């Protein structure tokens, strides 16, 4: 069977195994951002890397069928609005912008630290979607007047 797009069969097989592990690790980093090193930004980049892994191994068409450009854009916007609404929630519920208005909970447990968990999730959505969008744009959307002839001549 001929490969229509992407890399070889070996890479595709291994990618199927590793992508979910990378994705899970990203989720772990995000959700434990208030307990262990990491947080929304690092976790978001890891999630974006797992999708990039998929794109590099399977080619653009197969990967973008699972998560389309409209979905990426929606996730990015949802992340931004979510983060801002957390800030507004502080203003609404306790009168101070960005105040941690949720109960703090018990230290060192997963459900603690009030709004910090939700801030992490919002930043994760924003960073993951945004960086993946940048990758897709830079790697695949070629400009029509791309200076290809300069590369050939040199």
């Amino acid at each position, binding site marked *: 069977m001929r490969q229509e797009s992407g890399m070889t069969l070996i890479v595709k097989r291994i990618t199927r195994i590793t992508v979910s592990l990378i994705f899970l690790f990203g989720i772990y980093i995000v959700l434990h951002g208030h307990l262990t090193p990491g*947080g929304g*930004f690092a976790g978001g980049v890891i999630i974006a890397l797992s999708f990039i892994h998929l794109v590099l191994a399977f080619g653009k068409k197969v990967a973008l069928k699972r998560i389309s450009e409209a979905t990426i854009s929606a996730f990015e916007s949802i*992340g931004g609005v979510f983060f801002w609404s957390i800030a507004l929630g502080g203003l609404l519920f306790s009168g101070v912008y*960005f105040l941690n208005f949720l109960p703090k909970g018990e230290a060192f447990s997963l459900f603690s*630290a009030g709004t910090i968990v939700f801030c992490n999730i919002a930043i994760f959505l*924003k960073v993951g979607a945004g960086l993946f969008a940048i990758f897709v744009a*830079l790697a695949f*959307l070629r400009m029509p007047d791309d200076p290809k002839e300069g590369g050939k001549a040199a």
Partner: protein
Amino acid sequence: MLEHHVIILLMIAGAIVAMELEDMLSSVIALGAVGIGLTLEFLLLRAPDLAITQLVVEILSLIILIRATVGVKLPPEKVKGRIGYFLFAVVFVVAFLVFSYRALGALPAFGAPVMKMGSLYVKEALARTGAANIVSAIILDFRGYDTLGEATILFTSVIGVLAIVRKVGRKQ
């Protein structure tokens, strides 16, 4: 202190190599060496949050740079008036070193902060926010404004990239 000096010298060497190489791919790889050196430096200075973020961002930017620059060979640039540029660079470097020598001498000693806000954060972060990771407590609770600004910067940069490389609506 020796390992810091070794890593910093390697990073400077990597940066110079990245600038001087003609091949884009080798140049990008040399740039990756600089990033890995920075990650090691963060780890040695006991900043695992920064080390994780630096490492994953370095991988991402390496992938983007390789994907965007592989096969692209820039035409050799002809610089006119090299002596002028060289003199300007020397003057700038000397001025930078003199001013940084005087400014860094006035800073508190390494690892001995006297900042009031910083010590307040360290003392009260767990009690006030309930977050065991003090870095998260600072960037998402005490300094939420900064993080909102960073999110805005990221949003703007994504919009900028998409606006520059888009296909739809571009006039031929």
